[in-house]
């Protein structure tokens, strides 16, 4: 695909703690096209954040390792890149918004000091130009009194404001790719909506691609063009947004969709998928989801399913095997 900005191929990541090693990411493939918003959904522990950190080159150096696979950004393989080169990309061509706006800003530096960093590192600008640029961007993300805010400290701002600051930090160098890791999870619902709206706006205006990590299908429905569903370090389904909601192929995706609260279903208990995501060291043979899957049959416990492709819709479930026949 020539219009791909980010291609992750067969990514495998290993974590070491002492003598034990685990593989939280086992062969992840996906592609993000230019100008697209790609959602990555899954429960906690499914490997969403680890994948996004790998793209940013922010995995802990001593305890983690990319054992196999490629991360191609504009044709360059980031996994083979030296730290010095990678640094020129971070915050410049790829930037990231983190989940926790409360702890993601340095408490002892002013907003202005922290925001000046990407420009300082990647642009040859004078102090005055930097300040002007920062105020511009802060205005763009809807922060009032930007001229004063740059002299304030993070603890003087509310959570929503801090997340706006984080977004402006990610925006400053006008990156081609923005990664947002659960950008609204820590925020109030009303603020969530504002922040999502803002991100959508900014993405369209700046012609960026967005990789949106979330566990909230509501956010996905609102924001994304295509969706990658991750489970226990693997991708179980990839589909275009409408197709995913209309015709989910993997039982896990169906479970996620059924677990969404709706406005009309007030009296019933919410649906939930029983059980938990297996820890990376608990994974045995067969399908990773088999032990929680309501539709699992013998084969699911014996052999891991391959990737079944139907057009652009990809899923990893034995039910998609034509030999097993179409089920539900």
């Amino acid at each position, binding site marked *: 695909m020539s219009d791909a900005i980010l291609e992750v191929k067969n990514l495998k990541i290993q974590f070491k703690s002492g003598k034990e090693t685990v593989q939280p990411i086992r062969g992840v493939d996906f592609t993000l096209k230019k100008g697209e918003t790609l959602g990555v959904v899954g429960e906690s522990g499914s490997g969403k954040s680890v994948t996004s950190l790998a793209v*940013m080159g*922010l995995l802990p150096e*001593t305890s983690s390792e990319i054992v196999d696979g490629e991360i191609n950004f504009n044709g360059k393989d980031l996994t083979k890149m030296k*730290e010095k080169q990678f*640094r*020129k*990309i*971070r*915050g*410049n061509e790829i*930037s*990231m918004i*983190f989940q*926790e706006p409360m*702890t*993601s*800003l*340095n*408490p*002892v*530096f002013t907003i202005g000091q*922290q925001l000046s*960093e*990407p420009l300082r*590192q*990647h642009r040859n600008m004078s102090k005055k130009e930097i300040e002007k640029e920062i105020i511009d961007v802060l205005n763009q993300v809807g922060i009032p009194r930007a001229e004063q805010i740059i002299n304030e*400290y993070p*603890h*003087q701002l509310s959570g929503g404001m801090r997340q706006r600051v*984080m977004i402006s*930090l990610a925006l400053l160098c006008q990156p081609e790719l923005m990664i947002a890791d659960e950008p609204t999870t820590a925020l109030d619902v009303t603020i969530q909506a504002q922040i999502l709206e803002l991100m959508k706006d900014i993405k369209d205006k700046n012609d960026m691609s967005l990789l949106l990590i979330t566990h909230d299908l509501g956010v996905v429905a609102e924001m994304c063009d295509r969706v990658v569903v991750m489970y226990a370090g693997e991708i179980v389904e990839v589909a275009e947004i409408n197709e995913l909601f209309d015709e989910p192929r993997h039982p896990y995706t169906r479970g996620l969709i059924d677990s969404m609260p709706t406005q009309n279903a007030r009296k019933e208990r919410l649906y939930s998928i029983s059980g938990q995501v297996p820890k990376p060291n608990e994974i045995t043979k067969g399908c990773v989801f088999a032990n929680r899957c309501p539709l699992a049959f013998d084969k699911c416990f014996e052999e891991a399913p391959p990737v079944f492709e139907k057009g652009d819709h990809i899923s990893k479930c034995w039910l998609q095997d034509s030999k097993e026949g179409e089920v539900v």
Partner: protein
Amino acid sequence: MLDFIIKRFLQVIVVVFLALTVVFFLIRLAGDPTTLFLPPDAPREQIEEYRELLGYNRPLYVQYGDFVSSAVQGDFGESLRSQEDALGIVLSRLPATFQLAISALVLALLIAIPLGVLSAYKRNTVFDRIGVGLTVVGQAVPSFWLGLLLIFFFAAQLKVLPSGGGGTPVHMILPTLTLAAYSVARFTRFTRSAMLDVLRKDYIRTAKASGVPTMRLIMRYALRNSLIPIITLVALDLGVLLGGAVITEVVFSWPGVGRLLMQSLMNRDFPIVLAGVFIIALIYAIINFVADILYAYVNPQIRVK
């Protein structure tokens, strides 16, 4: 902020007062000094007479009241030995103690902070392991022993440095090293752990995600946060250093307050002991007071209420 300063200053006064009171009663447990000033076979009447003269035959609470009322006027009485003003004697020894304490502290900081930062950055490497090992040793070695070792090697064997006394900068080298050793170990360990803690924080990841190079990440973004707890530690240690590096001063015959206190205690020269305690408690409290203000300067979350 002014409220805060006034409140903390009142605390300083209370701390000093309490310290004096405790010491006043504690040293009385050692008995009164009169017997030390008279020959061992002095008749009982003479001892009583002398007690009467010095006022040690009065009830303890009366002596305490007397002490407090003159102490608040800055009068700690005269040395029982030399009949000189007790506070004056203590103050005259203060510069030597200051000199030693400050040079030990500066040396300790100059070594410990870079070492701690580097250890944290290179955690679990051979460098880090050796560093941690040395700091454990540094904290475990008692200063009188280290002092004697240094004297043995540099003064007795190599004969390159004087074994004791004060006056020239050369005299400072060994006592400074002895005094700094413990602080180096403490500060290094503390800097290392504070730094490790900070390096794991989300905001460090944020800065890294902005493309900040490692060196700048550590020296600017991480160090400043790590300094906050270190300031408290430095203040506490400086208090200890100033308040009488008693052992080090005795080992090296350093003419400072610590050695003076030690000698005065041996002689039961109570006015000097109390004047010394007063000065030390005051310094200790003031340093902590300054540390609190400095703390507020480094940590904006405290500054703005």
